[in-house]
């Protein structure tokens, strides 16, 4: 089942990757790539936005590690779509008993949901919302455990990240009927950690593709009469890159496997997500340097298709918490327990989750 989904997604995404690359604006400062509606329609047709749901909820009943390869493939093919965001939105909506997302969706935090005489009022501003301009459903999580599902009523200020993905600012000031708000299945800090796992998975996909490109290119590019992969210094750099890729992927899978525990062991899940995103973010930075170095001046051009990968590495390591953000959360927990609890924390608490 999972292999079939992987192959299907891989073929579909490969078909659309060229168009997405061709649609990139000429310059990074010009803004986001145009919304790829055909690609999104195909994604919906295959049901990928429902990949984290059980069969009763309308999904395929996959284990999380069977569904997450789809997210890695979105990264590997450098597709400009909020699939990870929509998968999370549907996961939360289903768990909260609200109706599933219509179209591309996104989850936002940092908006206040306050009660008023006829229902609820939503107020606030959220920055760097992935494809806010294309979203047809927005899921709002507030700080006190409420969830709201809306389909209209926000205004958009456009923005974009280094990889020309839309990262818009959304402004909310709207009234909602009582039935549009429910109790959230997870607190917003747990959602942040879920987002971090999705980005760690995405980074792992980009990293795997980056390594593959480096291996292929170093075998084709000839200098001093030999393919450059024949030089030990290139071999050593690529071996180091491979280690970073392997660690990022392993960390992302470690936390990805624990997605099923967000409701029962949220605090431990956060620690695994923290390690995963921290590790993937660190790997991303190191990998981007090696990839560009191996590809030389050719890889530095807009024309050559390395930058959709490396700009994603740079952009995604900052999204859903950078390395310092998650390291601080991990460190705080470890230091709160002191030396006595340190090994039991690693071995029994977070290590005992599988």
């Amino acid at each position, binding site marked *: 089942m999972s292999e079939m989904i992987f192959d299907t997604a891989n073929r579909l995404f490969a078909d659309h990757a060229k168009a997405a690359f061709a649609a990139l604006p000429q310059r990074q400062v010009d803004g986001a790539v145009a919304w790829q509606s055909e690609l999104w329609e195909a994604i919906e047709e295959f049901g990928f936005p429902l990949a984290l749901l059980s069969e009763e909820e309308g999904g395929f009943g996959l284990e999380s590690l069977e569904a997450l390869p789809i997210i890695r493939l979105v990264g590997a093919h450098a597709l400009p779509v909020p699939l990870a965001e929509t998968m999370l939105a549907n996961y939360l909506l289903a768990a909260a008993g609200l109706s599933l997302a219509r179209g591309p969706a996104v989850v936002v935090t940092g908006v206040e949901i306050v009660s008023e005489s006829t229902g609820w009022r939503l107020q606030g501003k959220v920055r760097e919302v992935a494809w806010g301009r294309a979203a047809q459903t927005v899921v709002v999580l507030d700080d006190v455990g409420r969830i709201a599902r809306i389909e209209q009523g926000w205004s958009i200020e456009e923005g974009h990240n280094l990889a020309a993905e839309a990262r818009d600012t959304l402004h909310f000031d709207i009234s909602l009927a009582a039935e549009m708000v429910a109790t959230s299945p997870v607190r917003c800090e747990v959602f942040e950690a879920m987002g971090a796992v999705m980005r760690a998975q995405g980074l792992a996909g980009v990293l795997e593709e980056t390594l593959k490109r480096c291996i292929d290119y170093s075998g084709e590019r000839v200098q001093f009469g030999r393919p450059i992969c024949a030089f030990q210094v290139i071999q050593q750099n690529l071996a180091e890159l*491979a280690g970073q890729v392997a660690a990022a992927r392993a960390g992302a899978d470690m936390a990805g496997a624990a997605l099923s525990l967000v409701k029962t062991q949220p605090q431990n899940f956060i620690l695994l997500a923290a390690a995963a995103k921290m*590790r993937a973010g660190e790997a991303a930075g190191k990998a981007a340097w090696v990839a560009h170095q191996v590809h030389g001046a050719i890889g530095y051009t807009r024309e050559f298709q390395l930058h959709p990968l490396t700009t994603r590495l740079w952009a995604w390591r900052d999204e859903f918490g950078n390395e310092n953000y998650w390291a601080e959360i991990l460190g705080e927990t470890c230091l709160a327990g002191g030396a006595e609890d340190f090994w039991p924390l690693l071995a029994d608490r977070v290590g005992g989750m599988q």
Partner: protein
Amino acid sequence: MNMLSFPPPPAGMAMPELRTEVRDFLREQLGDDYGPEQRAQSWMGFDAEFSYQLGKKGWLGMTLPKEYGGHSRSALERYVVMEELLAAGAPVAAHWIADRQSAPLLLHYGSEEQRQTILPRIAAGKCFFCIGMSEPDSGSDLASIRTRALRVDGGFRVNGTKLWTTYAHHAHYMILFCRTDNSDDRHGGTSQLLVDLTTPGISINPIGDIAGEHHFNEVVLEDVFLPESALVGELGQGWKQVTGELAFERSGPDRFLSSFTLLTQLVGILSQAPSREAKRAVGRLVGHVMVLRHMSQSVAGMLDRSENPMLQATIVKDLGALVEQEIPDIARTLVVDTGSPNSTFAAVLARTLLAAPSFSLRGGTREILRSIIARGLGLR
């Protein structure tokens, strides 16, 4: 990129009862007398009595069949015990090599007589081994060894010198990697021999390490006669056997826990008044350790399923050494206590830092590991 994939570790590696049992045992055996400075020796701490007690508990030769004095337990149970011992900084050096690589090698390739006579003693914590691989002119280039075993009537006559032989001066046996034949193939004509270190003609000379401690030795073999029965496995198959042995050497939890006592000390000191800088630095190291542990357990699972995770083990060792070496470098910037007399932290830091260069040397240098990875990537 299959070689880069680390499947989820097997279910049930939490083993809370076994872990509690090991922790209780360590508290009882070591207590407060075995302080952080000694624990910082990690897998270099030597205590024959401790190893004997561990054997009595049934925690040596855990995976060996019962008929050879073992306990027929799973490789994963063994992993959990090893990990608990290392996390506590228990003195495991006496039995470490015998239990980790010599016993599995003898079980796999050894003669029935070798298995019957040696394995029960390893499991009892009474028989210690050293590694006979490196030589004065053969470090990373292991295939260039010159120690030679000539066929003579009834056995072999061995001449040569082994170097950097850890704890040879306390070991009962060495698994000697040597040339037994001329061969055009660099890897051919090599064999492994079981050497009783009391055999006449063997001299063991101490070599101080960077800290002036005596772990290393030079082992000189002069006209040493070994009986036919000393041959381990097949004549001429030494290279294949020795690479299998290295896979055991590279895959365990000793590849990310070498600096763990220092990290624990650091957590203890910084927890008094945690600054944001301290949280971030500790959290980053912990994140690395968590991922390495996950990868290491994944390798343990592959070994348990009789897969061949040679490349994954190599990657874990390479990444593990980086983090183990980073821990002292970062610890010293967070706790400014490095020169105080009687400071436990300073002593633990000094021991760890002085041990750290070896982390990316023994068991395969960083450069050798990366060339193995590069071959796996198809680059060479």
